């Protein structure tokens, strides 16, 4: 067995182990946990690159825990899809950690720092676990780890964050329980929990009501976690009041991993055949996504609090990914769009939430209408915000443009023309609410208020540890956007498509 084949389990195991080490180290020195976490995640990042390379060049990694064969033992399966996701998750976690270094001081009291970092590390471990596992019940365990830590991390600042955290606990638990019930129903029919095994056994019992019921429960449960409209109600408050680092991490990767569960369910456990012919979810998914795209944008336009606006924008952007999945039975470009948008939205929205946090920390501003003159006071953050916002709108050559292109092509290919209109319209709605912010940051000037703003004095300049990750993500928006236009990602996409058994290549 090659060393690289141990990497997935090492990443997950070490991530858990180092979380507990961090807690202990925190008693010695409050600064230690951060460095342990950062160092370990950098190691994971390198490991994940090796894993991705191995998966692309050799083939999927199948790792039997403790040498127990599936379906008895737990199997970790890494194919192109989750190797790709793993790299994204780990890199965003690293950037989020660096960002938190300058940010936590202003939002969380110092005695809580070791626990905060421990929880972040645990949440990351949960996300890595969901990403690599090939077992439905094991996935539930990691889901619970990732969710419970998220509940705690949202509440950690106390005060106004408590209520949204409590809402999320309720809604999230309902989601998790639905998932578990669903897995139980399917298990009762197939007698296995291994995804690959289940895929072999299930086609015989597609007609079975228990299987269909189980599938429905899993889908709804995961949709709550991934805040697909109209199950998003817990999310705007959470993103508005959680610590900035956590909002940024949750919006960029937490939700992507939750959504990844849905994709696994669609493509690896069940098949598109089941989704199309047994329960007829294909077009329905597209329309749910379309409504999510429009509703999220329209609600975002109504918001005045920047982070709440970004939260609704996330609801809309998750619709893009769901639309890609919904179109995938008709056209491979749909899945390409979804896969691409997972990355594009992760970097774009991560950057925007970091900017929102930075503006709040330096200038103490949350309301978009107060943002006058930010462009002068915080040039780097404003530039990053503008680039990421352009990416959300879908201006070439940023990342968002590529997603839009793929999805439009998918809709045309699938002969589902209404979605072309919806995608283009959504770009314009995004323009409306993001441009308002850009206008306020750079261009709006009111006479009189200018002096008042200067009299308040500027806050402390931001530390490099906050500006650098923001700028890196903004730069990535452009770099990734250009890479998506080239043919460099084609091998990866081909591999993802074949690993998810789409049976076609592009």
């Amino acid at each position: 067995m090659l060393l690289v084949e141990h990497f997935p389990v090492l990443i997950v195991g070490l991530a858990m182990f180092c979380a507990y080490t961090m807690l202990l180290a925190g008693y010695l020195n409050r600064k230690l946990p951060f460095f342990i976490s950062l160092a370990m995640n950098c190691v994971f990042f390198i490991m994940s690159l090796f894993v991705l390379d191995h998966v692309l060049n050799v083939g999927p990694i199948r790792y039997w825990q403790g040498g127990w064969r599936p379906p008895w033992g737990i199997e970790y399966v890494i194919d192109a899809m989750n190797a790709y996701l793993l790299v994204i998750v780990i890199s965003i976690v690293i950037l989020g950690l660096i960002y938190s270094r300058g940010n936590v001081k202003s939002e969380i009291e110092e005695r809580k720092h070791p626990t905060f970092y421990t929880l972040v590390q645990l949440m990351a471990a949960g996300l890595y676990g969901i990403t690599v596992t090939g077992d439905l019940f094991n996935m539930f365990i990691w889901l619970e780890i990732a969710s419970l830590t998220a509940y705690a991390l949202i509440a950690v600042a106390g005060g106004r964050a408590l209520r949204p955290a409590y809402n999320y606990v309720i809604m999230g638990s309902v989601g998790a329980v639905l998932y578990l019930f669903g897995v139980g129903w399917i298990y009762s029919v197939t007698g296995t929990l291994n995804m690959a095994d289940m895929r072999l056994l299930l086609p015989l019992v597609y007609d079975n009501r228990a299987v269909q019921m189980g599938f429905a429960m899993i889908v709804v449960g995961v949709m709550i976690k991934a805040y697909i409209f109209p199950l998003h109600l817990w999310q705007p408050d959470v993103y508005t009041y959680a610590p900035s680092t956590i909002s940024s991490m949750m919006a960029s990767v937490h939700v992507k991993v939750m959504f990844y569960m849905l994709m696994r369910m669609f493509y690896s456990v069940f098949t598109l055949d089941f989704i199309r012919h047994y329960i007829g979810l294909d077009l329905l998914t597209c329309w749910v996504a379309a409504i999510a795209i429009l509703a999220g944008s329209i609600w975002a336009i109504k918001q005045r609090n920047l982070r709440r606006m970004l939260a609704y924008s996330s609801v809309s952007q998750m619709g893009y990914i769901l639309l890609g999945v919904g179109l995938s039975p008709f056209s491979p470009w749909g899945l390409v769009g979804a896969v691409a948008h997972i990355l594009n939205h992760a970097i774009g929205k991560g950057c925007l939430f970091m900017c929102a946090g930075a503006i709040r920390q330096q200038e103490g501003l949350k309301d978009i209408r107060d943002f006058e003159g930010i462009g002068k006071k915080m040039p780097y953050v404003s530039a990053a915000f503008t680039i990421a916002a352009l990416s959300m709108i879908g201006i070439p050559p940023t990342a968002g443009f590529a997603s839009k292109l793929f999805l439009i092509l998918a809709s045309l290919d699938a002969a589902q023309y209404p979605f072309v209109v919806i995608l283009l319209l959504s770009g314009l709605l995004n323009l409306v609410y993001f441009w308002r912010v850009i206008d306020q940051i750079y261009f709006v000037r009111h006479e009189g208020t200018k002096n008042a703003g200067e009299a308040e004095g500027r806050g402390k300049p931001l530390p490099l540890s906050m500006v650098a990750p923001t700028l890196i993500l903004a730069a990535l928006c452009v770099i990734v956007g250009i890479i998506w236009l080239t043919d460099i990602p084609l091998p990866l996409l081909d591999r993802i498509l074949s690993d998810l058994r789409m049976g076609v290549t592009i």
Partner: protein
Amino acid sequence: MELMTPLFAILCPAIAAALILPSRNHPNIREGWTIAASVTMFLLVLSMAPVIVKGDTIRYVLFQSMFEDIYIGFKVDAFGEIFAITASSLWVLVSIYSIGYMRTLNEHAQTRYFFSFCFAILGAVGVALSANLVTLFIFFEIITISTYPLVIHEQTPEALRAGHKYLAYLMPAGAFLLFGIMTTYYLAGTTDFAPGGIKSLANASPVIITVLFFAFLLGFMKAAWMPFHSWLPTAMIAPSPVSALLHAVAVVKAGVFGIVRIVGYVIGMDLMHELGLWLILAGIAGFTMITANLFAISQDNLKRRLAYSTISQLSYIILGAALLTKDSMQGAMLHIPFHGYMKITLFLCAGAILVATGKTRISEMAGIGKRMPVTMLAFSIGAIGMAGIPPVCGFISKLYLCLGAWAVGSPYGIIFLAVILISSLLDVVYFFPIILTAFFSKPMGEISGSGEDKVKEAPLLVVVPLTITAIFSLIFFVHPNTFYIFDLAKMAISDLFGGV
């Protein structure tokens, strides 16, 4: 022929933009970058012309995209080269003018101004050199976004409203354009410009082609055809050099450039003729020519009057393309640079008047010819050219348009010939009063000896560029082949219609 020149040309403004930001505290160095980049870019663009005149095209593939048969890259053909030469040569002059204008008026945010300007030009030249619709779209959106800070430069609520109107028109246009491009790709499997139209598009059903045509037409709203024109006069709130280069040349010409590309290189003349789309396009153009000129007559603000004149003149180009004859097409192609030079002269004059006297209204400009003889002489040259009167280059392009309309034959041809002539007559109606009041009427409430009739021109950096553009407007009449323009136009026509 594979050459990296198009890439280098595009990189010039990008590099300049990157250098402008760090040198924001040293105005002279900052403007130095702009000048250096503009001159380099112009020379690079011009260096491609001799190759193209020989009938070769310059291709440079930046990278293959993941879509089959779409690459991001440049293909410089004769028509693209005409637009590229127009935009890049005028950028040199406008850069010089901008320095004089912005410093004399002591404008704020000059770094932002020069930075955005670089990207706007990058977009315009990129559009000119693009090999296919996808590349064109990328540069098209860059133009839209980068000109916004220029339009709202004043940052007053009024300017912001104008900016919002600007985006409210042009961003939906971008969505239409993207729709058109993706549909083209879906139908034809390629988006490369092919002289005479993309062959595989001919198999699509007429209804879809018609939908496609309208999507493109709405997508190229930058051409300011009526009734989707009102963003252009509103955008005149921008500083004069911006209005000059962007709203008389780069932005709006990118729009008409796109329409000519669609007519000649995507949908193709045969399909346009077969489906009767040419008549729709020509009808829109003719309507715009007359109506915009009627609007222009009632404007008192000089820049707004020029804006309506631009709207009308742009439709000459659209009409030339729509008539689908060799001569009309050549007239359209020639009108792009010729109108560019004449209109920029007019806008620069309007800016010079603002700098020297602070006046923006025509009614206040009585007797201004005595104070600013050079400026008003240049203005007169531009105005004469607009009306198509020799010895200014507007005559040549309009002559070709008229010949083209005549060649159409049928009652339609005669109607459009009449439209061109009436519209030119209207040009005379609203331009000549300006010249008359400027030179021959006395300022109102003049107190003799108040110094009003002393010569007091705008600063040299402002006056010299507009003099040069005026002189070029004359040179183009005497020698239309300056900068290879005439040969390029002939080359483009032989590309389109096959053989000379």
